């Protein structure tokens, strides 16, 4: 027994170290958000302030445009996640199951789109969106984010479809389903873990995107949350307390979202489908 105890303890310790390392910035965010302004610079580096306050939260909610940013971000991220996942499940299925002309050309093209630095694309995209009236609009952001996320999401979904045996669709088709019904009733439910992963990935990507939001949006009405955070930086000072309070609140939807989908992320739904 004693011999096997040491590796276990070491293993747990290693995990603990990693968790501490990963969560420390979040802890710091929380700590600063509850530190009163007068203590922020006077107490030096401490793990927890001698006095805590929720004033920053109250201020952010009442006197800043934060609720607008929050709403905008939620709309943009959720729409992007839904649009991308819907497109990616269809295209991923096609890439996984059908053979068609130019299939590999399309795959190559999709890979190619992932190879450009985003900064390079800001100007041309602005140029395209501006005559269409899509700058300074949430719709424009959703379109841009969707375009950037669909290729990767397609590959992600394709790998999930590849893991589902073809026999299942064939059985469904013999049972009397059309190809699309077999896809919707048999294959899609089995891909829920994949769909959850894709939704989560795209949602967080859109939630935290700054560059395009900053370039395509001006003014507070259509600003998303990462852009909004910058309003706490003024010419002469940075209002750390309020910024951190806003940051903590921005974490809530992402946290909730993953709580919602984590059941599917870990579930191996295909177990028992075929011999195994």
């Amino acid at each position, binding site marked *: 027994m004693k011999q096997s105890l040491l590796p276990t303890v070491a293993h747990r310790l290693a995990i603990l170290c990693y968790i501490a390392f990963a969560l420390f910035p979040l802890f710091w965010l929380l700590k600063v958000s509850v530190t009163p302004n007068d203590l922020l610079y006077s107490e030096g580096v401490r793990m927890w302030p001698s006095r805590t306050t929720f004033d920053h939260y109250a201020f952010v909610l009442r006197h800043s445009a934060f609720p607008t940013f929050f709403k905008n971000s939620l709309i943009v991220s959720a729409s992007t996640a839904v649009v991308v996942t819907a497109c990616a499940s269809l295209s991923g299925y096609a890439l996984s199951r059908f053979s068609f002309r130019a299939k590999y050309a399309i795959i190559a093209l999709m890979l190619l789109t992932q190879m450009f630095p985003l900064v390079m694309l800001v100007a041309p995209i602005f140029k395209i969106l501006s005559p269409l009236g899509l700058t300074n609009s949430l719709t424009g952001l959703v379109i841009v984010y969707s375009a950037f996320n669909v290729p990767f999401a397609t590959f992600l979904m394709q790998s999930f479809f590849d893991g589902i*045996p073809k*026999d*299942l669709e*064939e*059985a*469904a*088709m*013999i*049972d*009397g*389903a*059309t190809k699309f*019904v077999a896809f919707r009733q*048999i294959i899609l*439910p*089995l891909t829920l873990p994949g769909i959850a992963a894709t939704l989560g990935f795209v949602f967080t990507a859109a939630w935290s995107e700054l560059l395009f939001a900053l370039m395509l949006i001006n003014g507070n009405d259509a600003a998303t949350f990462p852009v909004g955070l910058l309003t706490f930086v003024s010419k002469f000072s940075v209002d750390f307390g309020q910024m951190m309070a806003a940051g903590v609140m921005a974490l809530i939807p992402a946290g909730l979202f993953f709580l919602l989908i984590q059941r599917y992320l870990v579930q191996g*739904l*295909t*177990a*028992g*489908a*075929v*011999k195994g």
Partner: protein
Amino acid sequence: MASIQIEKLEKSYGHVSVLHGIDLDIRDGEFIVLVGPSGCGKSTLLRMIAGLEDVSRGEIRIDGSRVNERHPKDRDIAMVFQSYALYPHMNVAGNMSYSLRLRKTAKEKIGAAVAGAASKLGLEPLLERRPKALSGGQRQRVAMGRAIVREPKAFLFDEPLSNLDARLREQMRAEIKKMHADLKATSIYVTHDQIEAMTLADRIVAMHGGVVQQVGSPLELYDRPANLFVAGFIGSPGMNFLDIIYREGAAFLKDGSRIALKSPAPVTEGSNLTLGIRPEHMTIATDGTGIAAKVELAEPTGFGIILHLSVHGVPVKVFTLDRQALNMGGEIAVSFPAQHIHLFDGEGRRMD
């Protein structure tokens, strides 16, 4: 129930041709087994009948009407897959009723059909379970249940037993046979296992290299194999083949030993032929006659003993029920009963 006709059916993938003109006429209610080694095209043929593979050339007719262009769902056939292909997110009842629900069958009818099939297959206590909570044999039964609730025109089986262990396979084989006797449904069954083929089939279709080698009842294939492939494939242990020269109405081995034939063969003197004889038909000669053979190995199977012999350098197997054979060593003599000898010509075709 329905008859199925297959006419000059061909299948090619690009330039690779896998089926070369298959003709087959399956009668209503018949149990047909397609048998052959892997890659002989038997599964492809089955999938073409199901509509899962396109037809390159030729025609498939179910109940007299051409189905080449029909989707699988419109062919009214059921299929049992080797992998079972159960829907993992539905319970047993859901799996079995899926086809009926797609056809918008009335709820009471679905309930009755599922209950009927479940009682036939002993699945009643499992109806609420998901496939992953079932054993291999139970999954197999659910797959069969899914096929029979529909009362389709024909059943297709794609090596349904090959994932089961030997004991369970024997049991399910008997159940399939019973089920067929019960339902009298036209069935096409693909297997590479010749025992399954022999025990289940009304007629066996032996296939090799995308060509039908012989069609006939199991005993026809066993007693009168049409060519060397069928002769070697059907039966276990496999048939012995010896190269002989035909002279004066008898067969002569390379060393000159004479084997008598029951009737003269219609070939010229001195022709090179192949003589085939099943291990279970050969006898060990104890009366001083017979051809000398060297014992190389003895395999007891419990029921009998398989002796591996060498007859003038040619490997020959003998199956005997005589337990004394286990103690035989060195030189013995074997005889080739004339009524059990098969002769094949230079192209491997049966002579008589």
